[in-house]
C-alpha cells in the first residue's frame, strides 16, 4: 500500500460490534478500503489521460467513513450521499467495472453513462445516490426514513453530507422533519475541513462543533474520528440501533480529510491549505494505513497477505479501466430512454399523448 503505516492504535477494538468481527470480515473491511483507494487512484490516472469528462471528486483519505458505515447496514438500512460518492458505491458492493465505465461515459456504466461521477445509484443495494446539489440529498434521505417507517419496516437511513452542506436550508429542514416525525435516520457530516476552498471556520458559525446544531432540534449528536474505522463502526452502530429501535434520529460529525483537491479540477488545491498539512494527514492519520497496522498487530494479516489484498485491488481497478475502455459509448437513440417510466414500459399511459417535443 502506498499509504504510510502509522503505529497509532485503534481505539475501539474492544467495542462489541468490532470484537465480534471474524477474521474474514476484518480482511474484507481492509479489502474494501484498498479497493476504494485503488479504484480512485486509477480513475485519476485515466482522468488525467483525458478519458473522462466533467468533475471527479475523489474520496481518497475518507475511506474509513463509508466502509465503516456501510459495514453496519442490514437488509432494511439505506444510504444516500452527495457527489463524492465512489467510496459509498464500492462499499455497498457496486460492480467496479460498472462504476469505472460510468466515469468513461460508457453504456455499460452503472447509470448507462447518464449520470457520471456524481450520480451513482444502486437501489438494489439500498444505495440511493450520488447527488450533485449540495445538501439536496438530505431531504431525500429523510424520505427514505419516512418510507421505512410508513411501510412498517425496521431499518434506518444514513444521509451523508459535507461540512459545507450544513449551511443549506434543506439540511436544516431535514433535521427538523426527522426530529418532528421521529424518523429512523442518522445524518452523517463527513467533515473534511473544507468546502471547496473554504475552511470550516470561514463557512460556519458554531459554538464547539457542527454536530451541536442538532441541539436546536432536540436531537442527539456526537463527534467521531474518521481516521479510525473501528471508532466509526462503534459510534455509527449505536446511532443506527437507536434509529432502528426507537425511531430517533441522530446527527454525527465524523472528522476526516481529503488528500486530493476538491475535484480533480481544483486549481487552488495548495492555496487554501498547505502541502505540509496534506502530507501530515497522510503520514499521521491515514485511515487505510491505521487499519492495516491494526490488522498486522492483531494477527489478522501479515505483510504478504496485506500486499496480496492491495495488489488484487490494483489489478481489479486496472481491469475495470480496460473494461471501460473497451465498452461502447451509448447510442444517440438512448437519449430518450429512462426519462419516463411509463414510456419505457410502453404502458398505455406512456403511449398516450406526446411526451417529447423534438421537431
Amino acid at each position: 500500500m502506498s499509504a504510510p503505516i502509522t503505529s497509532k492504535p485503534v481505539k475501539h477494538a474492544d467495542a462489541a460490534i468490532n470484537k465480534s468481527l471474524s477474521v474474514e470480515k476484518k480482511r474484507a473491511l481492509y479489502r474494501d478500503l484498498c479497493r476504494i483507494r485503488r479504484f480512485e487512484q486509477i480513475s485519476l490516472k485515466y482522468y488525467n489521460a483525458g478519458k473522462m469528462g466533467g468533475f471527479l471528486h475523489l474520496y481518497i483519505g475518507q475511506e474509513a467513513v463509508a466502509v465503516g458505515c456501510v459495514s453496519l447496514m442490514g437488509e432494511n438500512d439505506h444510504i444516500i450521499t452527495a457527489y463524492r460518492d465512489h467510496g459509498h458505491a464500492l462499499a455497498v458492493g457496486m460492480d467496479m467495472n460498472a462504476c469505472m465505465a460510468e466515469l468513461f461515459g460508457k453504456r455499460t456504466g452503472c447509470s448507462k453513462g447518464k449520470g457520471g461521477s456524481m450520480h451513482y445509484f444502486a437501489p438494489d443495494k439500498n444505495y440511493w445516490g450520488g447527488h450533485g446539489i449540495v445538501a439536496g440529498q438530505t431531504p431525500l434521505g429523510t424520505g427514505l426514513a419516512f418510507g421505512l417507517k410508513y411501510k412498517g419496516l425496521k431499518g434506518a437511513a444514513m444521509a451523508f453530507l459535507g461540512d459545507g452542506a450544513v449551511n443549506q436550508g434543506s439540511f436544516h429542514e431535514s433535521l427538523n422533519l426527522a426530529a418532528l416525525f421521529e424518523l429512523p435516520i442518522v445524518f452523517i457530516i463527513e467533515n473534511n475541513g473544507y468546502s471547496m476552498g473554504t475552511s470550516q471556520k470561514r463557512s460556519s458559525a458554531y459554538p464547539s462543533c457542527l454536530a451541536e446544531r442538532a441541539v436546536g432540534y432536540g436531537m442527539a449528536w456526537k463527534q467521531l474520528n474518521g481516521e479510525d474505522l473501528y471508532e466509526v463502526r462503534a459510534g455509527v452502530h449505536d446511532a443506527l440501533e437507536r434509529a432502528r429501535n426507537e425511531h430517533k434520529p441522530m446527527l454525527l460529525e465524523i472528522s476526516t480529510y481529503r488528500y486530493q483537491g476538491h475535484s480533480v479540477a481544483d486549481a487552488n488545491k495548495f492555496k487554501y491549505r498547505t502541502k505540509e498539512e496534506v502530507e501530515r494527514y497522510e503520514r499521521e492519520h491515514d485511515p487505510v494505513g491505521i487499519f492495516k497496522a491494526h490488522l498486522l498487530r492483531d494477527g489478522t494479516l501479515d505483510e504478504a497477505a496485506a500486499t496480496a489484498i492491495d495488489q488484487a485491488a490494483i489489478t481489479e481497478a486496472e481491469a475495470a479501466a480496460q473494461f471501460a475502455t473497451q465498452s461502447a459509448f451509448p447510442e444517440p437513440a438512448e437519449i430518450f430512454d429512462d426519462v419516463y417510466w411509463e414510456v419505457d414500459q410502453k404502458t398505455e399511459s406512456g403511449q398516450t399523448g406526446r411526451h417529447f417535443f423534438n421537431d
Partner: protein
Amino acid sequence: MRRLSYRQALREAFDEELARDPMVMLMGEEVAQYNGAYKVTEGLWTKWGDKRVMDTPISEAGFIGMGVGASMLGVRPVMELMFWSFYTVAWDQIINNAGMVRYMSGGLINCPIVIRGPANSGTNVGATHSHTPESVIAQFPGMKCVVPATAYDAKGLMKAAIRDNDPVMFMENTLLYGEEWDVPDNSELPGGELVIPLGVADIKREGSDLTLVCHGRAVLTCLKAAEILQNEHGISAEVVDLRSIRPLDEETIFNSVRKTHRLICVDENKPFGSIGSQIAAMVQQHCFDDLDAPVLRVNSLDAPAFYSPPIEKIQNPTPEVVVARALEIC
C-alpha cells in the same frame, strides 16, 4: 347526474385512491387537522387518520424532498403545495430530484409522486402568490403536468395522476374550486370509476371557423368568448381544452386546426415561452398549409401580477379580449 364542485371532485378522487392503495397518502401544510387551506382535503384526516393524511411544517424544500425520497421506496405521496407559487422554495427537490433521478440513474429509480395545489392568479394576492408555473414545469423532460378546468376532469385526471408511475405536477385553481359541474357517480360509469388518461385533450365546444386552444381557467374564458362570437358575430369557435400539458395531445389540436384553419392559443401564462408559444410552434410546422391566418396568442399581460382588484381582472385573458383577437383573423 350529480353536480359536484371542483374541490369535492378532487376530494372524491383522494378518498377513492386512499381506499384503493395503502401506499397512497396525502401530505402538506394544513391538509389534515385544518382540513386544507382551501378545504380540498376536508374530512379526509378524520376518516383516514394520521398515517394517511399528514400535516407538515412550512418547509416546502424539506417535505417535498421527503416525499420524493419516500416515493423512491414505493410510497405514493400526494403532496399539497398550499399555493403552487411556493414551488420556488422547493424547486431543487422538484426538478433535480423528482424530475431527474430516473434519468441520472439510468432508469433504476422512479418517482411516483403527485405534487398538487392551486396555480393561478386573479385573486388579488400579489405577485408572490399568483404564479402559473405550468410552462416552466413543462420545460423539463421527466415531468408530467396536468391542469384540469372542470370538476369532471379534476377527478378523473387526479386518479390517473396518482396511478401514474412518473412525477405528475397537478395544477388546480382557487377560482375553480367552488364551480359545480356534472360528475357521474361511480355506479353510473361502465368501468365503475372515473379515470381520465393523461395526454388526451377534450373538445369542450365544437366549431368550424376558429380553434381556441386553452387549459385551466382559460377554458371557461374561451367558452364565454365562443358564445359571444357565435351570438354576436356568427363565428363558430371550437374550444380545445388541453387538460394535460405534458404529455400533450397534439393530434386533437392539429385536427381542429385542419378543420377551422385559424388558431388562437389562450392561457394565463406570461407570454414568453407560454404553453401557447409551444403550440404555435408546432402548428406552424405541422399545419402550415392549413392555416388561413397567423396563429395568435392571448396570455396574461406581461408584468408581475397586479394587486389592485380591477386592474388584475384585466391582466388575465378575458372573453372580450379573446373576441377582439378573433375578429382580427376571422
